[in-house]
């Protein structure tokens, strides 16, 4: 089955693509979400994932394998993860040698940081995007190493695939120019670099602008200006290099250099200044600006701050997702600095920048994973190579008499045993056993993490019963199928935006807001409705033509990701647009409570009433009073709830999803 929230939207769009064809898909306007605004899906999504799955589906159908598109969608992520390991091998081979490539492929095959987004069922953009990212980087490094236009063209196509797959392509379009800049500063300018970067930039930019969602951002957005600046700088470098070669005379060249550099900097600075000041070049958008300034989102854009994946990373997450790679990474950096080349400089830069961003946002651990795996692989491979060469020396030393003079002296100078350390061979074999132990612990950790943490589809919840047996809570799907079968087809459902995609995909009903979160005011309206008392909320719901309201409640099962725990974010987002909602009204002394001591505004708001309706009569735990909320750990304050404008339509078997019908006004039929 398809996991999480976003994959449901991707699945729905892929289904649409296979049923209606590419032209309809590219021009699709969806009126089933964001009622009454609708959404221009064709122009606001990254089509790479859907087109990839559809192509695989059509290829299989052509070969007469009549699989359902859902099976293809579920298995796309693991398929591309295996492709990523292949690319990791070739990339490692390019940077260091075949040994490092092999170790890199093995490490990335089971690394939890990558598995978190590439399990079967995780049909999200990152599934193909990480493959595209690594492919683009590999092809670009190959182009820089060989100076061939064909490889640069390949990297431009890789970049195009990345742009079509994920918004994280901004990382590529900023890392590659940064890398070129570092090479220029360290004096490694070469013709190969010129050819590789220019071809990739021009062709890549043109190809990227074919995606409607990206549009003209490559020439207008501040996030892409670095690439253009480095492009112009490369032209200047090439020109200066050519003039220096023609002149063959340093004095004249100095004059020339002085004139051109000052004029180029002046012109460039003026152009950039005018562009930014006049607003033609848009500044960095909130999503990426919050990477540079992590406190920005908390103060200014509550929607970005509320997503749990956007929080800064804790050390435990790093250890959980990387295990031994965490300390192999600095070791690998040491080896890279010992053998500096264009390729190793690239991987060092990729590793350092991606680790910095992984520290700012949990979700970006995924982007750092290939770099960490590659660098750690260099450390492992180089160490194991040194150790095994020490182990093999005894045979070589005894054969020096029989081989040719030059060959033997070379062999003996390369791997001579140091006579002052007699236990070198024993030490080497002990260290090798240690390396083997570490790698096997890594494998055990990765498989344990995958089975415990990253296999849950999060639409079906699991818990351990009293006797240790596994209990499954399938409430979400129960509720969505109830919606699908028991409501009129034009019914409009209001819920918090997390569940929008799932409701549209599985319940097949129109929703008010969904996970795309493109319209903050619309979400704030829903937030305001949830935080107001029933009469005010009823007016808002009538204005939006809402027929049903869906809330998620974890008080009976102890499920902690329910709407009451998300409630403060609803208040903050609603209050960001409608100042009538004030967060301190819902808190008591700065504390969020739902028991008797909660603030009156909290006890009377719509969300509270909908979640706790009839809950006061329910005994949830042995020895606790009725109305004991297991997720918050307290007895609720307002047990006697009467609803005037809504009536309960359905509550799932474990009370996780609750659906209410909005009653028409009393003097209408």
């Amino acid at each position, binding site marked *: 089955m398809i996991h999480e929230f976003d994959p449901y939207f991707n699945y729905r769009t892929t289904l649409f693509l296979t049923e209606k064809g590419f032209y309809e898909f590219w021009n699709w306007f969806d009126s089933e979400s964001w009622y009454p605004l609708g959404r221009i899906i064709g122009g606001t999504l990254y089509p790479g994932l859907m087109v990839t799955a559809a192509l695989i589906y059509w290829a299989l159908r052509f070969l007469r394998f009549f699989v359902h598109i859902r099976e293809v969608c579920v298995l796309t992520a693991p398929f591309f993860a295996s492709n990523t390991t292949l690319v990791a091998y070739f990339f490692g081979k390019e940077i260091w040698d075949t040994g490092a490539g092999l170790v890199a492929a093995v490490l990335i095959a089971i690394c939890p940081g990558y598995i978190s987004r590439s399990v079967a069922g995780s049909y999200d953009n990152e599934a193909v995007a990480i493959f595209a990212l690594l492919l683009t980087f590999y092809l670009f490094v190959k182009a820089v190493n060989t100076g061939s236009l064909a490889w640069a*063209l390949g990297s431009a196509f890789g970049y195009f695939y990345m742009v079509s797959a994920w918004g994280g392509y901004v990382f590529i379009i900023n890392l590659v120019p940064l890398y070129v800049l570092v090479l220029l500063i360290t004096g490694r300018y070469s013709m*190969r670099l010129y050819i590789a970067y220019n071809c990739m930039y021009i062709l890549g930019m*043109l190809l990227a*602008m*074919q995606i409607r969602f990206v549009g003209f951002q490559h020439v207008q957005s501040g996030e892409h200006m670095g690439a253009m600046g480095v492009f112009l700088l490369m032209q200047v470098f090439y020109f200066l290099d050519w003039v220096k070669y023609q*002149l063959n005379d340093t004095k*004249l060249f100095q*004059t020339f250099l002085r004139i051109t550099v000052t004029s180029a900097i002046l012109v460039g600075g003026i152009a950039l200044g005018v562009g930014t000041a006049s607003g033609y070049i848009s500044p960095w958008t909130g999503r990426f600006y919050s990477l540079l300034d992590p406190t920005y989102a908390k103060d200014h854009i509550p929607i970005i701050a509320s997503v749990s994946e956007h929080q800064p990373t804790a050390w435990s997450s790093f250890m959980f997702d990387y295990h031994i790679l965490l300390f192999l990474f600095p070791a690998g950096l040491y080896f890279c600095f010992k053998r500096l080349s264009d390729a190793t400089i690239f991987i060092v830069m990729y590793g350092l920048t991606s680790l910095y961003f992984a520290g700012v946002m949990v979700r970006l651990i995924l982007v750092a994973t290939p770099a960490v795996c590659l660098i750690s692989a260099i450390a492992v491979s180089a160490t194991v190579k040194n150790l095994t060469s020490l182990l093999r020396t005894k045979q070589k030393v005894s054969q020096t008499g029989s081989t040719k003079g030059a060959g033997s002296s070379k062999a003996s100078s390369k791997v001579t045993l140091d006579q002052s350390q007699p236990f070198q061979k024993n030490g080497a074999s002990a260290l090798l056993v240690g390396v083997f132990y570490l790698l096997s612990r890594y494998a055990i950790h990765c498989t344990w993490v995958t089975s415990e943490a990253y296999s849950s589809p999060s639409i079906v919840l699991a818990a351990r019963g009293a006797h240790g047996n596994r209990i499954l809570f399938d409430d979400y799907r129960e509720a969505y199928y109830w919606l699908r079968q028991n409501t009129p087809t034009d019914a409009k459902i209001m819920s918090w935006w997390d569940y929008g995609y799932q409701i549209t995909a599985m319940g097949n009903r129109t929703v008010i807001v969904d996970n795309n979160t493109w319209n903050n005011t619309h979400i704030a309206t829903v937030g305001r409705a949830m935080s107001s008392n029933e009469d005010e909320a009823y007016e808002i719901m009538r204005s939006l033509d809402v027929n049903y309201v869906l809330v998620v409640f974890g008080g009976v099962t102890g499920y902690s990701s329910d709407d009451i725990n998300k409630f403060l974010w609803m208040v903050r987002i609603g209050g960001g647009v409608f100042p009538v909602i004030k967060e301190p009204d819902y808190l008591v002394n700065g504390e969020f409570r739902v028991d008797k001591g909660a603030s009156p505004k909290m006890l009377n708001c719509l969300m509270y009433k909908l979640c706790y309706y009839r809950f006061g009569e329910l005994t949830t735990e042995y020895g606790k009073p009725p109305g004991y909320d297991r997720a918050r750990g307290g007895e609720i304050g307002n047990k006697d709830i009467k609803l005037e404008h809504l009536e309960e339509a359905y509550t799932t078997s474990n009370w996780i999803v609750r659906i209410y019908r909005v009653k028409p006004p009393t003097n209408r039929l």
Partner: protein
Amino acid sequence: MVKSTTKDARDLFHTLRSAYVATPTNLKIIDLYVCFAVFTALIQVAYMALVGSFPFNSFLSGVLSCIGTAVLAVCLRIQVNKENKEFKNLAPERAFADFVLCNLVLHLVIINFLG
């Protein structure tokens, strides 16, 4: 100061000119092509300044096709130039084939983008 700068500039110009005359003919043809492409791009920018930039995608595709072929021609020049030690193992036919392939992709994308 000004006199020495102008004298320097004139020396510069003469040295450059005499050095350039010595380059082989095939490289000069590529240089001519690059100048033609850049000149066409400048004409398009001037036209855009006069008439306005709508539709923007057509303007971008026109300018970028000129800049694109100019850049690709410069890459070809680098690879074909016999004095570049890094590329002495590269056959000029292979360089030209790469050039043609990249130009093909460039122009296909331009035609799609022209609108």
